[in-house]
């Protein structure tokens, strides 16, 4: 049966471990993706993801459903990412893009994708990652939550603990920096249809 998050949380609070494991299964990928994009390191993102669920599990009895379970989870993950960034302040928070290895790429190529497309996609991904690494943490997080997790301005404002207008400003400034960096790297913005 396909339970909602709230139902699974209720069952988990009643001691049903399988329900909590279902929640983990449902949310571990988004949480890992969030952690990876915020801190930029695969292994550390895994650790943050694991720690997020661990804390959630421990704090489950105190979770009264005042917010969505996913928002609560995101908040825990973001706090952990923030702690990680504080600890690593001296080190770069985002790994620079590695060199492209065509033999390694060949294995991840889709059936309809040529090696050139794949190389181009990886290159672009590297440039975007690099550009995101240039942004201040708040702007980067706002963009990540908006672009990759589809949150509303209000949800981001709640998570970041700032006014709604600040979220918009962070998004605007972040996107502007990204645009400039992409242009500098030869990623000339394509003309797109107006929204």
């Amino acid at each position, binding site marked *: 049966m396909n339970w909602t998050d709230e139902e699974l949380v209720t069952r988990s609070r009643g001691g049903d471990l399988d329900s909590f494991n279902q929640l983990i299964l449902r949310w571990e990928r988004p949480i890992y993706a969030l952690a990876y994009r915020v801190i930029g390191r695969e292994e550390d993102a895994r650790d943050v993801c694991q720690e997020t669920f661990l804390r959630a599990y421990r704090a489950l009895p105190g979770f009264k459903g005042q917010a969505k379970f996913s928002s609560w989870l995101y908040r825990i993950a973001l706090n952990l990412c923030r702690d990680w960034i504080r600890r690593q302040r001296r080190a770069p928070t985002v790994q620079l893009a590695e060199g492209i290895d065509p033999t390694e790429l060949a294995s991840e190529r889709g059936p309809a994708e040529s090696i050139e497309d794949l190389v*181009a996609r990886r290159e672009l991904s590297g440039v975007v990652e690099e550009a995101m690494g240039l942004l201040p943490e708040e702007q980067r997080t706002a963009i990540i939550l908006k672009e990759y997790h589809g949150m509303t301005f209000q949800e981001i404002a709640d998570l970041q603990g700032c006014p709604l207008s600040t979220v918009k400003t962070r998004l605007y400034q972040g*996107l502007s920096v990204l645009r400039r960096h992409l242009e500098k790297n030869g990623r000339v913005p394509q003309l797109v249809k107006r929204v």
Partner: protein
Amino acid sequence: MSETFHCGDNTALVAYLYDEGEPGERAAIDAHIALCAACAAEVAALQSARLQLTAWAPPDADLGFAVVRPEEKGPRAQGSSEALVSPGPRGLRSGAWFRQPMPAWAQAAAACLIFGVGLSLGILRGTTPAAPAEQAAATAATSPASATSVTANDLAALEQRLRAEVAELRATPALVSAAVPQPGNNAQIMAQVRALIEESELRQQRELALRTTQMFRDFDSQRRVDLAQIQRSFGQIEGLAGAEVREQREMLNYLMRVSEQR
């Protein structure tokens, strides 16, 4: 939210970009960017940056976390020794149990066990050969009468028997030198060596072919990437040159017009 839009209000543009503004404000921005090229360009550029962001995907990771009960059997639970106490930090482990770090007490216990087994084996090996000697000594000690009853005839008989056995052994050299390779054996060994060498050569050839293919593939991919980059660069240069030519042509036309007027 206001239903008017002031040129340069970037936060309103962001709301428009993500379609989170109010309908009235959206209509106002629509009307504005239809007239204002700067704001239209800004929105297009932001939208383009957003499109580029879709290319960034996190790497695939082997997750599969799960909370395990302390009493649960199975590889996951075994790998997390602290899960036996509570489904705490170690209970939320993923991956194979044998890859999990072993706690210090378990490592110490393993070291003690290995040491104990080694010690026992050493003791056993040390006592086993000594046993027959001890038995012989005991036998000798318990039968002094038989030792004293050996006569000269017995000794002579023993000597003769030994000589006969030695002569017999000398007469059958093939049996003694069984370990020495014979001509037939030599050929067999040579054949085996040749087969091994051939097999090794084949393996090396295969490996060489594989490496060569990989190298060609790498080279080809790199060449294509380089060509694409060169093409892009040429395109940019052509664009720049074209723009300059256009500017100069306009300048000439302007000069011509001015000179004609005079």
